[in-house]
């Protein structure tokens, strides 16, 4: 189906997601896409085979986690942390960017900007 998505402000995200849970929707997944130098995170819900999408536009690196509402969001939010270098506040289990990537992997390989790991003990 062609994507149809409604924008939600970051501060209203948790309230909106809670509404989906209360109405019996299943969280299908979250998808992060680069958008105008920032990121668009799409949340896909499903009920009775009908899918609904909402999205937030994120320009800074801190995003509220919805894993407190939908526990199953923990894997996809960790994956987004790995690939895009974003940080989810309040993640149920936080792998800190190391769920799929290893110690030697590039940081945020799908990020809009190049992220460089700061070595311990090295001065700016």
């Amino acid at each position, binding site marked *: 189906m*062609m994507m149809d998505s409604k924008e939600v402000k970051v501060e209203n995200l948790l309230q909106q997601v809670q509404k989906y849970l209360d109405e019996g929707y299943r969280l299908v997944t979250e*998808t992060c896409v680069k958008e105008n130098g920032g990121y668009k995170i799409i949340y896909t819900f499903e009920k009775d085979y009908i899918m609904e999408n909402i999205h937030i536009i994120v320009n800074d690196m801190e995003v509220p986690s919805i894993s407190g509402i939908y526990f199953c969001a923990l894997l996809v939010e960790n994956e987004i942390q790995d690939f895009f270098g974003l940080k989810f506040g309040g993640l149920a289990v936080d792998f800190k960017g190391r769920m799929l990537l290893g110690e030697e992997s590039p940081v945020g*390989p799908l990020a809009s900007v190049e992220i460089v790991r700061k070595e311990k003990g090295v001065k700016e």
Partner: protein
Amino acid sequence: MSKTGIIPFGPQHPVLPEPIHLKLVVEDERVMEVYPAIGFVHRGLEMLAAKKDINQMIYVVERICGICSMMHGMTYCQALEELMGLDIPPRAKFLRVIWAELHRIHSHLLWLGLFADSFGFENLFMQSWKIRERIMDMLERTAGNRVIISVNIIGGVRRDMDDSTLRWILQEISGVEKDLSGLKDMVLNNYTVKKRTVGKGVLSKDEALRLGAVGPVARGSGIARDLRATGYAAYGELDFEPVVEKEGDCFSRSVVRIREIYQSIDLIRQAVSKMPSGEISVKVKGNPPVGEVISVVEQSRGEVFYYIKTSGTQYLERLRVRTPTFANIPALLKMLPGCELADVPVLILTIDPCISCTER
């Protein structure tokens, strides 16, 4: 006084066909908490979308997972067909159903073997894989390969089946059904199998919904949800009702898969009998337009989700794949606490984990 400790399960373990690591916090023999670790076989296939054109990407997505390869290709092609406004020939839709259901049968038989092996039932393991070989032969004869059959193209399928091949499929599928009759009893009415599965790893309907479980894991918990009911490909022209069991335990999930093998046999028979004549693909011109599309298909392990964003060039701007095992791991994390350590392999196998799918 009970003893508490941490037991590492995997990434290499006799029952695991692929690497996943679970840190099990145990109190004596009882699992209290579980922490997963994945990332051992991550390949970064989604990133290849920036380097491979839309046709080359079919080969990439087919290699996300061998067992579900046909359905990965189908989901991807359906997404681009929708985006490009292509109406594929009816015969191509029916052929996709036949190959998809053959894949489901061989996937479920593969699972049955691994599941039997997880509690030491070697005979069941060998018998189910023996039957599976007949399916692999069907795939080889119809597509030229046993596992990654590469039949999907944007606009249809690349191979046809003549009448004699379709008759042979019906003959072979009846042979598979006959072979299965003995095997079915070994699973559904066997004391040992029931002892190891009934009442183990119970996932209630509410939990399954909250945890986003899909496929046989959700249907084993009473959720009547199977995307084939939405009628994609040619499923809309076939009689179909999702297989549902209500107990939510390991046994229910197993029963769902066994019943689904029979359902797939029925769908193949229906597809062969209703097979329309005509072309098997339409010609595709130009690049896909700018847009975003979602495509979902019911794989053997459950719903697979594709998000595709295009920029009007021959390359995709973004490809995102959410595979069924990725959706079922949170349910596994809730099933394991409270179980006996000896039941951990059985519980893991009842979600039919595919780690190469999960990690892409």
